[in-house]
């Protein structure tokens, strides 16, 4: 098992670039998170992806409600593909080249002989775009901010997944979308999509609605039975985006992680969790608790059924503490 660290060349980045580089270095996965204590796996590294038809000519490939681990190879994310009269539309591409290749095969098996006309990336987190390499870059589309985020942080996030997942990542390189989206609607292959430019989970969260079926692909603005992640979150903005998402007319919602949802549970559960998270961590900061003390606090029963909730809560303490300290601690008069 190799533990790949950041190459010396990227460590020499000039000072003005350091902020983005640091942000990217901070994008650290959860769980045991250490390649060295994962069990040596003799079996073939095969995802065995399954397509679930969640609506007419619409398939979801559902990931496990876990963190990045050697045992799951990073298959923890939902991706989807849709058959249009003239071709196929793909939403997110998974965590690696290996996953992207497996997804291409699954699409070919499910809808033989149709060209892939469009790939949308919902945001720049590595589990959602690192399969881009398996697709023609000229059809991959996202808002400009997602493209910028991938350009800034893609390399370091890729390095970190190599560190966590080892050989599952072999050959994977970050490929940014080439089409910068800003239209409210797009017609692809005889099907119309409504596009929403939201944020809060990251600085740019792209939501896609299939106007024929009414299926909404929320990316990571919504989670279901899997704890939301916060490495780039702005909780207040995220809350507003969930209100917007709620008001979009839909027959079904596919969250970024967790099962597809007909009853509006994902939006409510995500909102409930991030509001609790913000409130609980604010309270810990106000009491002067250290991060370590806050990490031990109980998590309400209603969230116990969310996958990896303790791991994600511990990560969120690290993500949210510094800005809440700046917000909640008064500036003290100093003598210099």
């Amino acid at each position, binding site marked *: 098992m190799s533990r790949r660290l950041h190459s010396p060349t990227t460590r020499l980045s000039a000072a003005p670039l*350091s902020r983005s580089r640091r942000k990217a*270095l901070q994008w650290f996965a959860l769980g045991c*998170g*250490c390649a060295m204590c994962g069990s040596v796996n003799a079996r073939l590294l095969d995802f065995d992806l399954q397509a679930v038809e969640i609506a007419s000519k619409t398939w979801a490939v559902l990931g496990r409600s876990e963190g990045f681990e050697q045992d799951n190879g990073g298959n923890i994310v939902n991706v989807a593909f849709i058959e249009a009269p003239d071709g196929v539309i793909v939403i997110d591409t998974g965590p690696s080249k290996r996953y992207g290749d497996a997804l291409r095969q699954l699409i070919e098996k499910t809808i033989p002989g149709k060209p892939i006309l469009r790939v949308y990336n919902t945001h720049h987190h590595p589990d959602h775009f690192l399969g881009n390499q398996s697709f023609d870059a000229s059809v991959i589309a996202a808002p400009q901010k997602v493209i910028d985020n991938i350009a800034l942080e893609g390399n370091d996030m890729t390095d970190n997944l190599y560190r966590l997942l080892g050989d599952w990542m072999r050959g994977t390189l970050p490929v940014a979308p080439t089409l910068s989206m800003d239209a409210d609607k797009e017609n692809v292959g005889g099907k119309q999509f409504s596009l929403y430019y939201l944020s809060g989970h990251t600085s740019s969260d792209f939501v896609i609605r299939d106007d024929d079926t009414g299926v909404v692909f929320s990316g990571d603005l919504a989670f279901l039975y899997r704890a939301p992640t916060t490495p780039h979150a702005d909780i207040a903005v995220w809350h507003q985006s969930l209100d917007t998402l709620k008001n979009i007319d839909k027959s079904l919602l596919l969250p970024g992680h967790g099962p597809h949802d007909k009853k509006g549970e994902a939006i409510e559960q995500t909102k409930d969790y991030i509001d609790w998270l913000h409130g609980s961590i604010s309270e810990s900061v106000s009491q*002067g608790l250290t991060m370590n003390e806050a990490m031990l606090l109980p998590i309400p029963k209603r969230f116990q059924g969310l996958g990896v909730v303790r791991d994600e809560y511990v990560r969120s303490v690290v993500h949210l503490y510094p800005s809440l300290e700046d917000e909640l*601690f008064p*500036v003290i008069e100093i003598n210099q």
Partner: protein
Amino acid sequence: MVYLMKRFNAKLFFSFSNCQSVFLSGLLLMLAISTVTVSGAAMARDIPPDPLNSIMWTSMAERFMPEGEIVFDDRVKVMAPFSAEDQFHVPVTVDASQLDNVEKIIIVADLNPIPLVMNMRPVKALSYIGFRLKLQQTSPIHVGVKTTDGVWHVGYAVIDAAGGGCTAPAAAHGNADWMRTLGQTRAIASRTDNSSARMTMRMRHPMDTGLAVGIPAFYLNELEVKNSAGELVASLELFEPVSENPTFTLRPQVGIEADTLSVSTRDTEGNLVDFALSIPAASDS
């Protein structure tokens, strides 16, 4: 595989050092019997094997806990996450408040290029410190708490981390104006009970390690807290691995009356920052 080799070597090394120490202790005993004073006892002390099998443990003990018996002690609690979400800000809380007569607390990150993080003397404060450090790679953390009888009580944790925490430029350097906010401090303080308080402070400072290309070392290296009677509450000697915008939580011991804590800090360029924090009287809180 490499990791296993390291563990194996470390074990071999420890068993060797134990044998050697037993032999040396025997030799010393003989010397002592022949009425020679055991002034060389410190050199021959038995450094106990590290439960983490850190390959650097013996070196850490020799460099930073130079004299006195060393015992691993559960009363030195080291709270740290298994995995550093952010290798620039890894939270650690040390609580050795179950130990009496604590003279000083030293904190080392064995595999950091600069291992020594801090040397704290709790005088009128609980033997407790919350802080954040930078990690260059996955590392054991050892905390030595020296009691006035000369014994080092040692606690530990190991933290998995992505690389580069000590050699990347501080975030401050992404902003040309960073010096304007240098020393800006945010803090809160409150009373916990009739005899103790809790203070948390966060100061703007890049805490440059000197290991990022073109940026010399520049860090907060002294922090002292006194009470209104002028008595020393705690003093902290700080080193390069302490995180940017250093954040500390301390638990001063106070009387039931209101008190004002005076905090004074100094960095390696001689910049002094002083401020005061009020603790309400027990009857008011």
